[in-house]
């Protein structure tokens, strides 16, 4: 628990803090502490459980490790299957994110900065896409992927994931790109830039904060995606980590400690990635909520 509270005071900037309107009640700290405890206790249970032995877990399910076993983690880290599946997840995540960002920025730019017949319809089309979650489309999607010959291939996951992430991306990015003032475009045009020149030289750099938000959401969603891989992938070597965790858990159901170690390791990338950029996400959401 010390790890949770220790870094905070060092980072807090005291002069600004103390300039607040009122003194914060100690109860607030207590509630915040309890809340954080409830939120991370199950995650800590998984991580700490990976350091125990199976005998310990059976005898005393809620205890701490008597001696910290590294062997479970070492076993998982030395298995080629784990790295294969982590690689698959990374590959799918990176390509999905790249696709979402590139196609999303281009489509949002058109929606935000061009006036043309059918623009409202195009925006409504993407907005309606929010109503088509993966759950509804997955059965026919599975049939389509199969007839395209993409079964059990990572491309069969990447392409639909990009398509399904586009609506959110467009909804977040269009207001963002529209906020770039008209004068800027005029200035660029006076300086001889075409609309496309304006897009590459001004819009792309200015849209970075929004793109980061959208990109993180896409990556984390892809990293955690379960339903589509469940339908499309059918061999262990092509599994992404969520499927890998599940099949590992059912295969080694007696070896609880190793399952917990495998599970802990598979959540690290999304957690690291997320905590690095958390501020950006809240910033991006602030804009989206404001509308």
């Amino acid at each position: 628990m010390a790890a949770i509270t220790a870094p905070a005071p060092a980072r807090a900037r005291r002069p600004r803090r103390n300039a607040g309107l009122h003194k914060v009640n100690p109860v607030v700290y207590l509630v915040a502490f309890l809340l954080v405890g409830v939120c991370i206790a199950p995650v800590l249970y998984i991580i700490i459980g990976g350091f125990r032995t199976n005998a310990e877990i059976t005898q005393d399910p809620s205890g701490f490790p008597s001696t910290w076993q590294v062997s479970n983690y070492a076993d998982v880290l030395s298995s080629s299957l784990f790295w294969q599946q982590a690689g698959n997840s990374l590959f799918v995540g990176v390509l999905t994110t790249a696709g979402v960002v590139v196609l999303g920025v281009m489509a949002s730019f058109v929606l935000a900065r061009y006036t043309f017949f059918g623009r409202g319809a195009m925006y409504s089309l993407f907005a309606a896409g929010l109503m088509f979650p993966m759950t509804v489309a997955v059965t026919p999607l599975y049939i389509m992927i199969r007839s395209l010959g993409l079964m059990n291939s990572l491309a069969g996951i990447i392409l639909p994931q990009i398509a399904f992430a586009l609506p959110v991306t467009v909804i977040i990015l269009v207001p963002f790109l529209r906020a770039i003032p008209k004068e800027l475009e005029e200035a660029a045009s006076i300086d001889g830039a075409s609309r496309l020149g304006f897009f590459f030289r001004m819009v792309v750099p200015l849209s970075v904060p929004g793109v980061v938000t959208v990109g993180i959401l896409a990556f984390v969603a892809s990293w955690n995606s379960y339903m589509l891989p469940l339908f499309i992938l059918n061999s262990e070597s092509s599994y992404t980590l969520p499927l890998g965790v599940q099949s590992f858990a059912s295969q080694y159901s007696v070896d609880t400690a190793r399952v917990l170690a495998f599970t802990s390791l598979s959540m690290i990338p999304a957690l690291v990635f997320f905590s690095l950029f958390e501020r950006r996400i809240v910033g991006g959401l602030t804009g989206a909520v404001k509308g």
Partner: protein
Amino acid sequence: MSDSRGEDSPVLTTSAEGRSVAGGGAHAAPSPAGPAARASSSSVRRKRNSDWRKPLEIAVLAGPGIILFLMFVIFPVVMAAYYGFFKWKGFGPPTDFVGLQNYVTILTDPVFHDALKHNGFIVVMSLVMQGPVAVGLALLINQKMRGRSLVRVLIFVPYVVSEVIVGTGWSLMLATNGAVNDLLVKIGLEGWTVDWLADPSVAIWSLMIIITWKYIGFAVILFLAGMQSIPEELAEASAIDGASYWQTQRRITLPLLGPTIRIWAFLSIIGSLQLFDLVYIIWGQYVAATAGTSTMATYMVAEGRNAGNFGFGNAVAVLLFLISLIIALTYQRFVLRRDTEGALTEGKK
């Protein structure tokens, strides 16, 4: 991660506008006459070019996204409506047209009724269990306190961890001889130990606990984001007028948070209706129905793909979609209308 929440929250508008003012000024300043002349000549050229250039640019920029979207989102949903009228095992083209038979079967299937009931329960209980608590927590954390940014990162952890991990971890903890029961015994609450996952009268509550745990962080963060956009002057003014902290929250923050709360409720309802991953991972396709936690989506996968009845599975998908759509449209019509004007009815803006 520096701890400077206040400055960078309105990233979007300020950064874009700020730079533009500087940029525009710099360009306009040097020679007022020159650019104007150049602009007029170039606009003539532009006019001739734009006849074909603009549609081409639109097509090149928006085309790939639209094609991908139509192909992998819209088309499958349309095909689901078509497949739903057939009795079809998923091989070769569907030929055994059965009309509305699939729908009749589903709507008269008591297993589907159960799933629908569970979905309804999850929709309502998610709102009831998460909403008030999340607002309260957001209000607490929104105060200027030490380590606030760390608290925000940590309460978002359950949301970022994947459903599979949550399911695996919680099913181990909630097992009959798992950590939760063990802990209850240790602190002397032996009477409270139950079969969290297998007992049909308890299982759905266990599911609600897990759902609340996993998704409440998202609600809190959304509300915090909403609170950031409420001008601080309002709170300052009310403080000067002698309002206590909680009075300020009740009279100023909560009403202004309305739009955010309504959008969160919308997302929560849709998510509850589509719930699949957690149930399927923890209870599996067979146990979910008997443990009383099945949802429309697990019904769809169990009776559709897993049973090899693709026509039937697609019909369930269509029903699931229609139910979500009706609820969503009703909600938008009666609750969200004020908020989404301009957001969804885009053209007028």
